[in-house]
């Protein structure tokens, strides 16, 4: 559905405003380039020189409630969206008042107060996050709009495909702005695209795709006006291709003529978007040279002043290096109901928690394959579709990266997504969205954005699920700052921890061992919360401490029944991150012996982490070496005898305890 670019008629106020914004970006960039040459920019510096018309033309139609997600070349988007040159320059100089408080630098700019929800050093995620913000705005019944700025390098990336498709099928209020500056870093787009006509790709996803001259701010602005109107009206997303050129190197200080010629660059400099608007304004006698020169010198002064202030600003304090990795922990509701509960399965217990939280919080919605009418592969959403409708129980295409990234964008913008992966293994195709984006956004935004998102899926070996349906990712996700990792071992804990997860502002992995889903236990009917980072002492003992998670708790209990004369204290940390080291330390202080039983691999794992803590903090309490018992370091095999050999057995646990007691 080709839509022709629209030119707007020249209005003096609008014309001067666009002009001023573009000059503000240009002068700020020139100031930053100089600072970089003097060695005052500590890391990379990716300037936006030559592309100013795109950011300014798009943002002219956005309010401060609308949101923008951008790329490693985002200085222009930041200023166009309302970040002051002072905050931008201070950020690149690494100073405390920088827009990311010194946590980001050139590629990671955040200013949620003006709707800049982040620029990213990774190509692609901004597309998914904008779709997620669009999802929030739909769910919250608001007419706000989300914009993704990305380069030509992003359109051959899976995020583009998955994000545009999701935005299209759910008619999300999103504007996808491709700034085709013809090089992805230094690789020509003409070489890397099978179909170099980006605008035409809109048709692939059933959305309008429009190409405009990205160096003509009036053309950009006119086209965006219509796309934004459509988005606000609920008519869905638009793909806009702005053809432009950056006239400085990919990053300051890099050689520029190994992949393009000086002549090409000079030719594009002559098509400078600022000069072009200047010419249009004067030709139409909307403004005269004096007006424009006055703006130039006013902006010169503003940027110089901003630079002077930025350079004089304080450095961040070292003590703040790790603040805002997590949200302020909220105190859970203290009371666990006195109700002794009824015997229900794990699936029933967690479904009760999800239902109650969805009832209480209209911002919660679930994404996943088959979680709508079908009610989830593991009955995780049984009956909820009829109760809460399709917008809150959203079946997805098989596009894990797409809907995970989308969920991250939604969580930043006022809703609380629950991403139901069915099997946690499936997430790995979208792991970058979790590790690079979802885990880091609270920190990168210095706590100004929250990331309340629940990532749930089955883990664990059993019933010949083989290697793509049996992973246990607690170690991997527990490694990264910014994530919470929960692995309950029984229905009571699962319900209490899920309630807590759905009220906490951090991203939470809720990993459910498939062999435990049918496990029954006493569970109170009313809601109750169990906080993260508090281990359960499953069984008290004197001689040996055993730490185990999820299914291994049950196997260890069986092993204990086989032992005579050895008194075992069994600890279930319940969450791998945060990890309750203190309870383990206290137990080891009593027993002097520690065995960690872990279904998954040993190297760099959960057991290694606990062992390191105890070898340090509990050294003088140890009466024997610390032992680990792990699954073997192999992908999960299928055949029952092979599968059984891959995980710690009850007998192996019992023997390990006996051996440790004899040390």
């Amino acid at each position: 559905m080709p839509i022709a670019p629209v030119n707007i008629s020249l209005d003096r106020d609008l014309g001067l405003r666009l002009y001023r914004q573009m000059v503000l970006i240009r002068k700020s960039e020139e100031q930053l380039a100089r600072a970089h040459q003097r060695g005052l920019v500590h890391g990379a510096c990716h300037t936006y020189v030559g592309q100013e018309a795109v950011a300014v033309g798009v943002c002219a139609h956005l309010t401060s409630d609308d949101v923008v997600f951008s790329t490693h070349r985002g200085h222009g988007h930041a200023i166009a969206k309302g970040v002051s040159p002072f905050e931008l320059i201070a950020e690149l100089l690494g100073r405390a008042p920088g827009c990311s408080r010194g946590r980001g630098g050139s590629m990671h700019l955040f200013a949620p107060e003006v709707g800049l929800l982040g620029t990213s050093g990774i190509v692609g995620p901004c597309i998914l996050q904008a779709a997620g913000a669009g999802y929030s705005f739909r769910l919250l019944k608001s007419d706000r709009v989300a914009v993704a700025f990305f380069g030509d390098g992003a359109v051959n990336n899976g995020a583009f495909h998955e994000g545009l498709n999701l935005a299209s099928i759910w008619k999300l209020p999103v504007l996808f702005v491709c700034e085709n500056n013809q090089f992805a870093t230094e690789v020509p787009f003409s070489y890397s695209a099978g179909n170099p006509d980006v605008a035409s790709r809109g048709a692939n996803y059933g959305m309008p795709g429009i190409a405009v001259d990205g160096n003509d701010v009036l053309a950009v602005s006119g086209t965006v006006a219509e796309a934004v109107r459509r988005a606000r009206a609920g008519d869905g997303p638009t793909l806009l291709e702005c053809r432009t050129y950056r006239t400085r190197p990919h990053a300051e200080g890099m050689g520029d003529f190994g992949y393009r010629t000086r002549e090409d660059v000079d030719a594009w400099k002559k098509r400078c978007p600022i000069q072009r608007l200047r010419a249009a304004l004067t030709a139409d006698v909307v403004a005269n040279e004096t007006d424009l020169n006055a703006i130039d010198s006013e902006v010169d002064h503003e940027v110089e002043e901003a630079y002077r202030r930025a350079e004089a600003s304080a450095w961040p304090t070292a003590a703040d290096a790790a603040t805002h990795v997590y949200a302020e922990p909220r105190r859970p509701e203290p009371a666990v109901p006195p109700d002794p509960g009824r015997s229900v399965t794990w699936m029933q217990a967690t479904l009760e928690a999800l239902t109650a939280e969805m009832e209480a919080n209209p911002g919660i919605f679930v994404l996943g394959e088959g979680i709508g009418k079908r009610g989830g592969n593991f009955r995780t959403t049984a009956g909820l579709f009829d109760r809460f409708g399709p917008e809150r129980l959203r079946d997805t295409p098989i596009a894990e990266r797409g809907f995970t990234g989308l969920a991250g964008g939604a969580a930043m913008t006022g809703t609380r997504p629950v991403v139901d992966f069915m099997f946690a293994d499936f997430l790995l195709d979208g792991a970058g969205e979790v590790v690079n984006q979802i885990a880091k956004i609270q920190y990168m935004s210095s706590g100004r954005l929250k990331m309340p998102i629940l990532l749930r899926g089955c883990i664990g070996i059993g019933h010949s699920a083989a290697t793509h349906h049996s992973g246990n990712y607690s170690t991997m996700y527990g490694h990264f700052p910014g994530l919470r990792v929960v692995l309950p071992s029984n229905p009571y804990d699962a319900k209490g921890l899920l309630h807590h997860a759905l009220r906490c502002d951090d991203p939470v992995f809720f990993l459910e061992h498939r062999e435990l889903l049918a496990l029954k236990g006493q569970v109170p009917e009313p809601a109750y919360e169990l906080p993260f980072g508090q281990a359960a002492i499953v069984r008290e003992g004197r001689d040996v401490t055993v730490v185990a998670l999820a299914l291994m708790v049950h196997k260890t209990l069986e092993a204990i029944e086989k032992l005579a004369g050895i008194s075992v204290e069994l600890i279930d940390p319940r969450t791998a991150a945060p990890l309750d080291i203190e309870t383990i330390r206290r137990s080891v202080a009593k027993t002097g012996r520690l065995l960690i039983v872990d279904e998954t691999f040993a190297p760099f794992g959960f057991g290694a982490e606990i062992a390191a803590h105890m070898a340090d903090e509990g050294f003088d309490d140890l009466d024997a070496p610390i032992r680990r018992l792990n699954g073997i370091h192999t992908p999960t095999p299928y055949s029952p005898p092979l599968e059984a050999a891959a995980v710690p057995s009850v007998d192996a646990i019992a023997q390990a305890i006996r051996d440790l007691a004899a040390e």
Partner: protein
Amino acid sequence: MAIPITVPRLGWNMEQGTFGGWLKADGDRIEPGDRVFALESEKATEEIESLDGGYLRIPPDGPKPGDVLAIGVVVGYLVTSMDEPLTAANPKAAAVVAVASETVVAPASRSLEKHESTASSPRARRVAVELGVDWKSLTGSGRNGRIRERDVRAATTHRDNAVPITTFRRTIADRMLASHRETAPVTLTTTADASNLVSWRARLKSAGGPVPSFTDLFVKLVADSLRLHPMLGAHWTNAGLRLPASIDIGIAVDTEAGLLVPVVRNVPSLSLQQLATATSELIERARTSRLTSADTQGGCFTVTNLGSFGIDAFTPIINAPQCAILGIGRISRHPAVIGDAVEPRDQVTLSLTFDHRIVDGAPAARFLQSVVQAVENPAAW
């Protein structure tokens, strides 16, 4: 180009050494591996070997024996020809010389020295400090003799009221408590005339060969009675009462560590001499901690004898899941009324504890009665 010969570091904390003299003369041909000079550190004198080859040049102002030299000081050169000037040389110190023989400088700390000889757990050392015990003098009970917390605590028992509970003690405690909790014990006592038994044993003694103890005789008599009353040898199991496939009888043995109950297999098949040999061997192994777990498993009945301590009657605890245990008291002479006469006779009190879940009082009494008859009339047997 001349390669400088420098003073090497012989130990991680060495800062200087004393020059011990040249081992080669000026102008000598040096091959890699040749020892060139001696250097004395705090710990030892080492002969320093060359990594490079060349002709040795000793400068006229070179070191004299006894000179104290800092690490890295150039003491001489290796040159390719004797005409070569000696001005050159980027000190290639590390490459030039190495210690002639691999020498590990002994660390200074006493505790580290101790590590090499006696392994101990950090907890044991901490507790030793807390209790003022010299742990280095202890013998460890852990793997490879590692000193553990329990070893340190055991060393303090003479001045500490709390005797540590060993795993062995705890096992006994758990089993006793389990038996006490899970069985319905009733104890029957009776007295038997043991005169014939005593004279019988006296005859066996004079016959030569291994002499059965009184306990052995009782084991044999009990085995016989169990054939008549098999329910007394039954096990209580969840699947039902399990009658013994073979008459295997446990004997309570007092050891230094505590009570052990080795089991004699298939008692009816053993002659008295064979039985005596088997029990003395089991008892010896029990007292020297050489019993295997198989030696203590699977008995259908247990005999315990406290007679040598002057005990007459007591209430033994059932060795669950067995049905019963027979306690043997002291054999001593008492006046007995036989017809109208009073005669001195050897008498013994027998205490049978049985699990009332498995059998009732009457069958248990009948079993005890048959044991008494066998005691009083061993000849018939």
